[in-house]
């Protein structure tokens, strides 16, 4: 069954951002599943908007945005942690535990 488009006057709500490109970047550059969650919601934004479910599309857009930003934050935090470890190990002359 197709959801009934929301009647919000003459014009439908504008197509929300789907964060697809940003999610792809997070997937390739951060090694965690957050980017993939972002891609899942990005595809929901498109699908829901096209059947007239504008509110659902906006919810999916918010979720896509959330997961993309979480992935970005976790990835950035990971880089900072590694750099601190490298800095500490070079100060105390011990090898970093991360490299083969």
């Amino acid at each position, binding site marked *: 069954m197709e959801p009934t488009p929301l009647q919000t006057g003459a014009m439908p709500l504008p197509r929300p951002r789907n964060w697809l*490109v940003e999610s*792809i970047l997070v*997937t*390739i*550059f951060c090694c965690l599943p957050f980017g993939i969650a972002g891609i899942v919601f990005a595809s929901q934004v498109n699908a829901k908007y096209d059947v007239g479910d504008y509110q659902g599309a906006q919810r999916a857009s918010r979720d896509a945005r959330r997961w993309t*930003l979480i992935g970005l934050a976790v990835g950035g935090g990971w880089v900072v942690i590694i750099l601190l470890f490298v800095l500490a190990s070079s100060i105390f002359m011990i090898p970093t535990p991360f490299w083969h």
Partner: protein
Amino acid sequence: MRKTDIILSGSPTLKIVLTAVALAAMGGLFFVFDPLKAGFFPRCPFNMLTGLYCPGCGTQRAIHALVHGHLLQAAGYNLLSVLALPLVGYSAVAFAGSHLWGLPLRQDIFYRPWFAKGILGTVLLFWVLRNLPFPCFQWMAP
């Protein structure tokens, strides 16, 4: 409006300039340093925890190969990042071109449901295949 919205919805020109500066800095960093030799490039946390490869494993080595012009070597480290390059590149050029010079570059393709689903399928397939122990899939592992 949330705090991140204020940053994210900032002026397009500022975004373009910041992105260009960040790209140049990262490109320089990956040109000068080799992730295989320099000790400060972060290793993938998923790989550290599980021993498996994630869809992004090998991207840093791929970027190093790319900025030195070795396209095939880059694809050997991470095929996905090389395939994503034209997509992400087009999106960036379309964003900058339409905002700075009013060029009629549209990003409609990213809003087609089949396109996003195709990306999702490709990423998941790549994730599985590069971890399979069969020789025919070895070239996908970083």
